[in-house]
């Protein structure tokens, strides 16, 4: 009983140190348990909240598991056809240069069907923010091989593992677009640990600040898990990601203030 009183004394408004931002709606996320999409959504909304730009921000949802992102982020959003988000973001930013425009895209969306839009928006140096969630697979449609699938990695369309000789090499699209003169800030982060979440949030903040200062295109990759597609438990998938994804997709900044740093 005494213990309960103590607990109630702690659970008071003035002692609050963390609560989900109101910029996430009350809808239950459609993502699988443990999926990094949810964490990524939340920290984008925390940044928008902290910058006080809710009414000035427009997000673009992809095709993929995050197709319903507009249900979860309490800001203006528009759904783009598969891979076309950077083209839509270009139009939006040019028509409404005072707005903060970001696209939110998976690897199938950004690095497969939308490769042309991605490369050209980056090369033109549009003053937008691209958030790229790379889980190495097509999550939504059942775990098929994506351009980002690792060599030897199993997927529903490479059940014996990706054979580079017949299926080609994985595409490091983030390193690729970092080479283009139009990109200003390019970084690769993750959201599986508290420290990584904090770093990713800082990177997203920087990306939005760059947009405010009209610096050009900021590109934030989040290496994430797809525990359903990878057929693993969530915690196990995060461990697998550290062991297998990070050596191939190393975390850290790739380009800062228009200069390659890696």
């Amino acid at each position, binding site marked *: 009983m005494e213990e309960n009183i103590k607990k109630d004394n702690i659970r008071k408004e003035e002692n609050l140190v963390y609560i989900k*931002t109101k910029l996430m709606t009350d809808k239950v996320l459609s993502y699988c348990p443990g999926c990094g999409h*949810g964490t990524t959504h*939340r920290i984008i909304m925390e940044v928008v909240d902290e910058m006080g730009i809710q009414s000035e921000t427009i997000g673009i949802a992809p095709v993929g598991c995050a197709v319903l992102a507009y249900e979860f982020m309490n800001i203006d959003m528009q759904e783009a056809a598969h891979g076309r988000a950077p083209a839509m973001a270009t139009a939006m930013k040019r028509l409404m240069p005072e707005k903060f425009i970001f696209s939110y895209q998976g690897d199938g969306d950004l690095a497969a069907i939308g490769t042309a839009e991605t490369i050209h928006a980056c090369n033109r140096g549009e003053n937008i923010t691209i958030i790229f969630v790379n889980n190495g697979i097509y999550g939504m449609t059942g775990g098929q091989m994506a351009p980002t699938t690792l060599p030897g990695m199993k997927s529903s369309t490479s059940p014996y593992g990706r054979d580079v000789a017949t299926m080609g090499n994985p595409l490091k699209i983030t390193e690729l677009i970092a080479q283009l003169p139009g990109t200003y800030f390019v970084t690769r982060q993750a959201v599986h640990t508290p420290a990584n979440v904090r770093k990713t949030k800082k990177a997203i903040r920087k990306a939005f600040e760059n947009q405010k200062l009209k610096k050009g295109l900021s590109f934030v990759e989040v290496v994430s898990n797809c525990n359903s597609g990878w057929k693993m438990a969530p*915690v196990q998938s995060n461990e697998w990601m550290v062991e297998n994804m990070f050596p191939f997709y190393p975390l850290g900044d790739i380009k800062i203030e228009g200069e390659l740093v890696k």
Partner: protein
Amino acid sequence: MAKVRGEIVVDIERCKGCEVCIAACPVNAIGMSKEVNSKGYHYMQAINDKCTGCTNCAIVCPDGVITVYRVKI
């Protein structure tokens, strides 16, 4: 150094039982329930009084179901 005591509140019905929070807790203050919520998921709960209110679990929870309080004692 002042001692701190934390308290977490979990939105049990929205917890999906992924256990990502448990891996992130530095003091092993949380575990999974034996019971399940209406969706059939075991949910996260405090298992002792060791919580320091560090917010780690809340920061990594993909579903944002954890609220954290902290007091100096």
